[in-house]
């Protein structure tokens, strides 16, 4: 049969040339495809490292490769995912190439696992029970064997042709799920399944299904790039909070030193008469070289305006955590939230340190959504200008967090321009991708003209990027 046509998963993947070096290069190539920067020097290091470890030890082999190739936590995670997939496939491809298949080759290993026939399939309940036991015992080998049994019980080749779907179908039919468990037949309570063990079982299922498939079709399924979801590190909101705090504390340092230093040198420096005279002694009393009064780094004075309307709901939590972190770092900071009107929330942040409470209080007593609940940027600028403008001076930095969607109302860009003029610097962080700016009711362009910088910002990475740019560095590569 023609392999490419018969595979339900698509065309055949190229097994690549034989040999370890080629395999390793192929692996690195895949890593590059996933965005891990693997340079030639890394590959050379990997080869050098492999000379010193035993290849027969799975862990040593993997760790040696990982330490030379994957140089961050993110990279490491992608590495793990690809390592399993790639070397498993490489082994299977080799088997296909050599025509090894389980029924003829390793009779011993297959014994007892092969289904005796479709006629007497295993009792599903009993199988489920055994899998449960194996999970509780944490026995990986047993799990693998049971995964094969489960697939056999469902009949080889009867799957939908999509591994992921089959895995979930088998798991559900066996009645395995995390959380509370149905009681046993005699009514006894059962402990809930460990989520990690369940994932491990699914991994075995996936692997065995894939192995079956490769054996049946004698081809490799095409390799697919990792989904965004797979490769992201598992994080909790509070971990993100920590990352935001980190980026902000960095921003504080930069704002306090680097940025101002550069600004100061440009214009408006005062001559230091005393030091000029002193320096003139070198040249016989002729003041050839002027000495300037050193510019004192100014204390950052920050005004943050944060949109909390429904159009930015998804970003609000992020923005509030940015605000929260800013309050941790800066003393001279005033924060405002706005929807239709503006409301100062500096007090809330200063008196409450727990982020959850802050978020709750702002939503309950912010008092910013008066009538319609739609953002009115124009009105916000007007209010901000009347209330605050006297206090704005060239030393102050204004940061706006919002999507610039005016809901068709008057944007009052000229008022915004006035604010920008009074404030020393004005930055805009927009939670939407640049691509969406100025589409629909977004009037970003009208405001962007008056900003010292406008940035897309919905992850900590963007925030760090913003910090870098503010600090005068180059934008971090995405």
């Amino acid at each position, binding site marked *: 049969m023609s392999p490419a046509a018969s595979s339900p998963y698509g065309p055949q993947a190229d097994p690549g040339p034989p040999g370890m070096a080629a395999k390793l290069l192929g692996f690195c190539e895949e890593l590059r495809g996933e965005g891990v*920067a693997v*340079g030639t*020097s*890394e590959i050379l*290091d990997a080869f*050098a*490292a492999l000379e*010193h*470890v035993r290849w027969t030890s799975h*862990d*040593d082999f993997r*760790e*040696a490769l*990982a*330490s*030379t190739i*994957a*140089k*961050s*936590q993110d990279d*490491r995670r992608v590495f793990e995912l690809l390592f399993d997939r790639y070397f498993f496939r490489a082994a299977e491809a080799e088997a296909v190439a050599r025509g090894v298949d389980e029924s003829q080759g390793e009779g011993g290993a297959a014994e007892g696992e092969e289904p005796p026939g479709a006629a007497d399939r295993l009792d599903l309940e009993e199988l489920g029970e055994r899998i449960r036991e194996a999970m509780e015992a944490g026995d990986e080998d047993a799990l693998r064997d049971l995964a094969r049994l489960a697939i056999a019980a469902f009949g080889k080749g009867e799957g939908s042709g999509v591994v992921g779907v089959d895995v979930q179908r088998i798991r559900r039919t066996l009645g395995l799920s995390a959380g509370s468990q149905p009681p046993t037949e005699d009514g006894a309570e059962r402990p809930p399944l460990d989520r990690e063990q369940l994932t491990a079982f699914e991994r075995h299922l996936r692997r065995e299904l894939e192995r079956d498939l490769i054996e049946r079709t004698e081809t490799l399924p095409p390799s697919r790039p990792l989904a965004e979801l797979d490769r992201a590190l598992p994080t*909790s909101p*509070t*971990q993100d909070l*920590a990352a935001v705090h*980190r980026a902000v504390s*960095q921003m504080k*340092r930069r704002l306090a030193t680097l940025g101002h230093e550069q600004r100061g040198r440009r214009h408006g420096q005062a001559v230091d008469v005393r030091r000029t005279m002193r320096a003139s002694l070198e040249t016989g009393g002729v003041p050839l070289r002027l000495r300037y009064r050193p510019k004192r780094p100014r204390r950052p004075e920050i005004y943050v305006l944060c949109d909390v309307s429904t159009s930015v709901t998804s970003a609000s939590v992020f923005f509030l955590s940015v605000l929260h972190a800013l309050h941790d770092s800066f003393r001279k900071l005033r924060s405002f939230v706005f929807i239709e009107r503006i409301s100062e929330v500096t007090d809330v942040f200063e008196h409450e*340190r*727990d982020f959850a409470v802050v978020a709750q209080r702002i939503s309950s007593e912010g008092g910013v959504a008066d009538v319609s609940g739609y953002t009115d940027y124009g009105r916000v600028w007007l209010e901000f200008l009347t209330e605050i403008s006297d206090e704005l001076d060239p030393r102050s930095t204004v940061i706006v967090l919002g999507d610039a969607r005016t809901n068709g109302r008057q944007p009052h860009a000229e008022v915004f321009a006035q604010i920008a003029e009074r404030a020393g610097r004005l930055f805009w962080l927009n939670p939407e991708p640049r691509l969406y700016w100025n589409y629909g009711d977004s009037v970003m362009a009208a405001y962007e003209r008056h900003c010292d910088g406008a940035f897309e910002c919905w992850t900590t990475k963007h925030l*760090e990027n913003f910090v870098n740019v503010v600090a005068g*560095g180059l934008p*971090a590569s995405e």
Partner: protein
Amino acid sequence: MADTPHGSVQDVKQALAEVGYLADEPAALVSFLAQRLGKPILVEGPAGVGKTELAKALSRASGRELVRLQCYEGLDESKAMYEWNYRKQLLRIQAGGEQGWQDVQEDIFSSEFLLTRPLMQAIASPEPVVLLIDEIDKTDQEFEAMLLELLSDFQITIPELGQISATTMPVVVLTSNDSRELTEALKRRCLYLWLDYPGAEREMEIVRLHAPELPETLARRLVEVIEMVRDLDLKKPPSIAESIDWARTLLLMGAEDIDRDTFKRSLSIIVKHRTDIDLVAERVGMKLPEPGRTG
């Protein structure tokens, strides 16, 4: 086995264990590879998982001297590498008044007038050393760039003197708390090791190693509680060092079990933020048995 490269990964692990550092497999393997390949190790991980301790243990295990460079913002080459001893140079010029300029110039820029700083010390040392560059993420990118020559070729270029190459291969350990992304160029030259909080078993071994008088049941209990605390979303989860401190505290308090009372009294050893303390007391404290009841 002073200063012979260890034979295998297991030997390294063994040697580290003998000096009181229980390395996990990846840590032992990377330490082994670093010695074999002569490459620096970049260790990243949360605060307090034993990154710095790894370097110290490597130095103890191999019998090498530890040269430590603590990084901070604004660290520059005159503090990290070398500096000309300006005063001594001045003295030299004044003392040798009748000599020609050429002689003086050659003389004052010789190694006699060089003040060596940690990096230079590590390179110039006749005995092989372990060089620890601690918290590299605290420095500026410019400093990182300056390190590149040292890390790849183990040499330092001084304009007046030329290149100074290492006579012996130092083992270099860089640690980072991941407070900023390090440059690709730096990472490229290093082996990467991510240290994380240890599993329950290993942490228990570590605690028992450092507080041997602690009964096993209590140690197990302690590790369980610590794990519970780390699972909460804290500003600063307890580090391994704090587990050890806590174990010692419990010994001093003569505690037999970690009950609610003991926990409350010694809580400040492991949690060091006001909001964290409240959270931990609420979530973990409640799960512990009442005082007086053993169980």
